[in-house]
């Protein structure tokens, strides 16, 4: 139960299959194993306790991931977009450490104590027989930490989520069939290596026999160009990426005929966007994947058949399944629990709990699992009659207005149902009378018009007055981070400030500001 075992199986079963890089000239399974052993030799030669990676995507990522596993060291990919202070804060927690990095990032960490730097190109280079690594120990500890991922917490220092070898291996063998991919299949990877999907895609692609093609970082033009040039069959994107990809596909009037399979996750997908994608790319199988860092990636899937059935249906219940994240994968259990801890009945909103061999639910120094192994995700959600799971925001984002719990997702859905609204984010802002009140940021459809008062009446007619935004800020777009997470807390802070200013009567009404 160790990551090395997955690569060993691939090298045993399909030594000559190209698994990373271009079809002629990429790394075969056997060559990847050789380079990972070489990397392991470098990682074990000093006193390092971690192998960190401070870099964009390249073939160094799988080499370093498996190399670290063979050397028995945790692999810690770090977000290169962090500020220097935050970056150094994380690096200092990992020392003594070996850091794999590109030349451009070296100066950011060069002077730290306890750091050994290995250049990415050296790690990827031709195997150096001088440091050739003996075969890894046959019985590597399945309970050892394989990967550390630092969460993008906005308060206090980043938390280090731990994934042990047994979690990641359980995920792979529970959800992927060994070498079942056709030799022509290729996976375009554009999520960064510090995102859980950037790690899981390496493991599932290599075990499944699907060649990985990397984009160093995501941009929609390169994504579409690479997908065409490399005959990409598979890819995973976050919702914000998908929107930009579709824009490029439309402008270029290309339909990517090789693309057969597109999965998405990592953030809320709007029904308009997925319908637009299905309309533009009818030959593509779409998969919605729900997963968290703490669950070793995917725990529920809405498959291609369910997408098509929902799209073709005029029954509102079936149609709504495009909003669903599907059904739990067979190796994972999912429960919805009410605030009192009891399992919630079908249709009732509660907290999503997950359990299974792949569920780690652990931060450095602290496990969040219940005694019987359940992980409270802090995601709100519910099941429908057919066993389909729907997500309804983060519990921490719930608005408490005068003792009443309000779900931002429900209010956002009501706003988005208005024909002039393209996107909406609803937050609670502090209020002396109610504790919190509802406020919203709305992005209008291009050339469409709706006033604050019109949208307030629209929501009041569909929900009720307590759920009606007290004010609405119109903007050109919503702020997302690079992995597609809506920056809700940023909006909450900005709207709270705006409310104070508005009460002082110092600025014009927000509806006129955009």
């Amino acid at each position: 139960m160790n990551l090395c075992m997955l690569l060993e199986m691939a090298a045993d079963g399909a030594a000559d299959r190209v698994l990373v890089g271009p079809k002629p000239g990429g790394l075969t399974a056997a060559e990847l194993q050789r380079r990972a052993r070489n990397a392991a030799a470098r990682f074990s030669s000093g006193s390092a306790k971690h192998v960190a990676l401070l870099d964009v995507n390249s073939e160094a990522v799988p080499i370093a991931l498996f190399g670290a596993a063979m050397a028995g060291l945790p692999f810690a990919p770090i977000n290169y977009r962090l500020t220097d202070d935050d970056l150094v804060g994380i690096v200092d927690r990992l020392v003594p450490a070996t850091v794999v990095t590109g030349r451009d990032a070296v100066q950011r960490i060069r002077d730290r104590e306890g750091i050994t730097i290995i250049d990415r190109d050296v790690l990827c280079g031709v195997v150096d027989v001088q440091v050739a690594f003996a075969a890894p120990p046959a019985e590597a500890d399945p309970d050892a930490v394989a990967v550390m991922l630092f969460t993008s917490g906005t308060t206090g220092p980043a938390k280090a989520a731990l994934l042990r070898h047994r979690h990641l291996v359980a995920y792979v063998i529970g959800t992927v069939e060994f070498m079942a991919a056709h030799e022509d299949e290729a996976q375009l990877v554009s999520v960064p290596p510090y995102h859980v999907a950037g790690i899981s895609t390496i493991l599932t692609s290599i075990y499944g026999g699907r060649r990985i093609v990397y984009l160093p970082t995501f941009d929609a033009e390169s994504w579409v160009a690479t997908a065409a040039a490399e005959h990409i069959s598979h890819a995973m994107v976050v919702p914000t990426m998908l929107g930009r990809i579709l824009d490029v596909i439309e402008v270029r009037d290309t339909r990517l005929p090789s693309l057969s399979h597109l999965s998405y996750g990592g953030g809320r997908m709007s029904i308009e966007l997925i319908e637009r994608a299905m309309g533009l790319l009818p030959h593509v199988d779409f998969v919605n994947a729900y997963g968290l860092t703490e669950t070793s990636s995917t725990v529920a899937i809405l498959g291609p058949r369910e997408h098509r059935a929902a799209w073709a249906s005029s029954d509102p219940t079936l149609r709504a399944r495009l909003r669903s994240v599907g059904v739990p994968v067979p190796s994972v259990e999912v429960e919805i629990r009410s605030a009192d801890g009891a399992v919630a009945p079908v249709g009732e909103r509660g907290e999503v709990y997950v359990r299974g061999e792949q569920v780690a639910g652990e931060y450095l120094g602290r496990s969040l699992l219940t005694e019987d192994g359940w992980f409270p995700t802090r995601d709100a959600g519910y099941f429908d009659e057919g066993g389909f799971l729907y997500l309804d925001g983060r519990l921490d984002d719930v608005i408490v207005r005068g003792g009443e719990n309000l779900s931002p997702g429900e209010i956002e859905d009501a706003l988005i149902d208005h024909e002039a609204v393209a996107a909406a984010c609803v937050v609670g802002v502090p209020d002396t009378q109610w504790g919190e009140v509802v406020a919203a940021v709305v992005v209008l459809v291009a050339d469409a018009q709706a006033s604050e008062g019109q949208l307030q009446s629209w929501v009041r007619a569909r929900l009720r007055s307590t759920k009606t935004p007290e004010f609405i800020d119109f903007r050109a777009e919503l702020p997302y981070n690079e992995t597609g997470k809506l920056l809700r807390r940023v909006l909450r802070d900005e709207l709270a400030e705006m409310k104070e200013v508005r009460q002082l009567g110092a600025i014009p009404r927000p509806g006129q500001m955009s």
Partner: protein
Amino acid sequence: MALELKPGTKLRSVVCSTEVIVVRAPADAVDLRCGGRPLATGSVPGVPAFEPEHGFDQGTLLGKRYTDHDKSFELLCTKAGSGSLSLGDVVLQLSGAKPLPASD
């Protein structure tokens, strides 16, 4: 010899190079064999001491999943070998688990 299994338990053949890990564990202890001989949990000396018995010599396939008639457990073959996996005297079959669509 019956074995108590849990997911992740690694088992080895004493007659060939076959190795398996437990993907789904059975509720009770089970008499799992390869090549007619009980599987071992610990390390096994390099050269097998026995040959696969007749009728248990069809071999195992790398990366395939094996299960019993009731599908009460599932094993994954991580190293192929010349012996056949069996529960007692009944040879295990390939598990027909439906593959999931790729999600990442």
